[in-house]
């Protein structure tokens, strides 16, 4: 007689990914990156344009911690007001300086 399977703990779905912004430092965004399960979280740091690219590549929706909201928005606004000539010619967005 087959026993009902013992409680099968769920395997985290590695395609489910989240990002939570925890702070900023100069042009860098500090954030927690989670794959599949809140236990699987790692603290990362990336320059703002690289951060946006990272979220897009991983299809990871981003939330911002209330304490980091103001600083993150400043960074966000600033990145859109950088005059174009300051971007390196032909540089990809991650090389925005």
């Amino acid at each position, binding site marked *: 007689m087959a026993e009902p399977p013992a409680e099968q*703990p769920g*395997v*985290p779905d*590695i395609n489910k990914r989240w990002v939570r912004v925890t702070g900023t*430092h*100069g042009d*860098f965004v500090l954030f927690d*990156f989670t*794959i*599949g*399960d809140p*236990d*699987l*979280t*790692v*603290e*990362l*740091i*990336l*320059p703002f344009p*690289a951060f946006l690219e*990272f979220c897009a*590549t991983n299809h990871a929706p981003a939330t911002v911690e209330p304490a980091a909201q103001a600083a993150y928005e400043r960074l966000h606004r600033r990145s859109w007001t950088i005059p174009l000539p300051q971007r*390196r010619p*032909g*540089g990809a967005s*991650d*090389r925005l*300086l």
Partner: protein
Amino acid sequence: MSIADKSTAKPRKLGLKERYAHLTRGLGWETTYQPMSKVFPFTDYEGIKIHDWDKWQDPFRLTMDSYWKFQAEKERKLYAVIDSFAQNNGHLNITDARYVNAIKLFLTGVSPLEYSAHRGYAHVGRHFVGAGPRIACQMQAIDELRHAQTQIHTISHYNKFFDGLHDARHMHDHVWYLSVPKSFFEDACSAGPFEFLTAISFSFEYVLTSLLFVPFMSGAAYNGDMATVTFGFSAQSDEARHMTLGLEIIKFMLEQDEGNVPIVQRWIDKWFWRGYRLLTIVAMMMDYMLPKRVMSWAEAWEIYFEQGGGALFEDLSRYGIRMPKYHEVASKEKGRLSHEVWATFYNYTQATAFHTWIPEKDELDWLSAKYPETFDQLYRPRFEYWKEQSDQGKRFYNNVLPQLCVTCQIPMIFTEPDDPKTICFRSTLYKGERYHFCSDGCKDIFLYEPEKYIQSWLPVHQIYQGNCGGATVPEVLNWYHMSLGNDNMDYQGSPDETLWNEWTADRHKSAI
């Protein structure tokens, strides 16, 4: 209460606090068959005075049973993710095969240190009189063993597809540049228990590890290496506990006796410098080995040491502790460290278990922008010259072995703190022999304990003495368990490059 009452009464469940006391402090006792000094022979000789072991504040109220439960659950999820990446050919999602060379350096240089840390904590955990630090060390010993295992399991996936990952343990114990991390940890493990904790828990874990784990994990994530990110899940959450232990041990020693302050300060000075020298490989990984860069070494040093460390030492100043000696030298070197080291590995990559290369033009531009005061003037012309030579089929390999610093065992490649064009040479005579050093920091460490460091196993000396398999490069490589032409030499033309181009060509085709 009668005996009968007792046997029928439901056993009372212990409260959390009681349970915690029984499972930690309750496990220690005063010995009676043998004097305590014989059972714990290493607690006095370093000169640290402890008057009351119970003043030790446990940084984390964790008992062994809850540790197992918590870690087992975390590990279960972790291994599910590792399997999943392996089954989905995770190695094909990285930005470029050059990236894997950072992983090769990590597996041969850093993962064995996790294992050494496991041994070190297991050892010192046995030698503290107080049950509090003993339990904390025991848990950290198991953490470190888990880290070594997770890293080996994660990286084993890359071993199926890339060269240089096949024998990390053997390489760590034999290969010339790996004697740098190996000797660092052996220095710590052969010190007394208090110095070990200052070295590893405080100087390394608390002051310096954030430079390794946050930017390196960010580099892995940004370059599509989700396998490495998985061991970040495991390591980073433990790291917070380890850092708390590091700060606790320092405060405990400083609060117990005023006489401990100068001893602890000397250890902080020594282990800051040793740790900083060890991190040169991280500087190189960040500036040269990540196809998509996160931040420069100079930026990381500013954020994590100059700002983060500055605040820490300001906090410790009330105990009479100052910034580690020569921290200003480290800051002066931040604009040149990675370039000096990458150039050295470029020279000697015929004897490394990873590939090196001249950065692409846009990568050189990134370095010029990040290091406006040094890169164009001092380093870029050299890389461009080497590129020119290489394009003419004259890729430069240096066949003369370098002189090594007796203390950190790194080749004498660093430059004078105030003159980036002059190699920094220091030396001293001891018992009729001359010993050489890369810096004042390394020379100071030697002078305080010369009998320890004259025993250094210096790879270059050992090769020239014939103790490393023979007198030729192929013989030494054989002794290193490296395969000539596969594991080493320039990335350009390597089997790694050939295979990567094939795989990605297929991927592009199938995408069409």
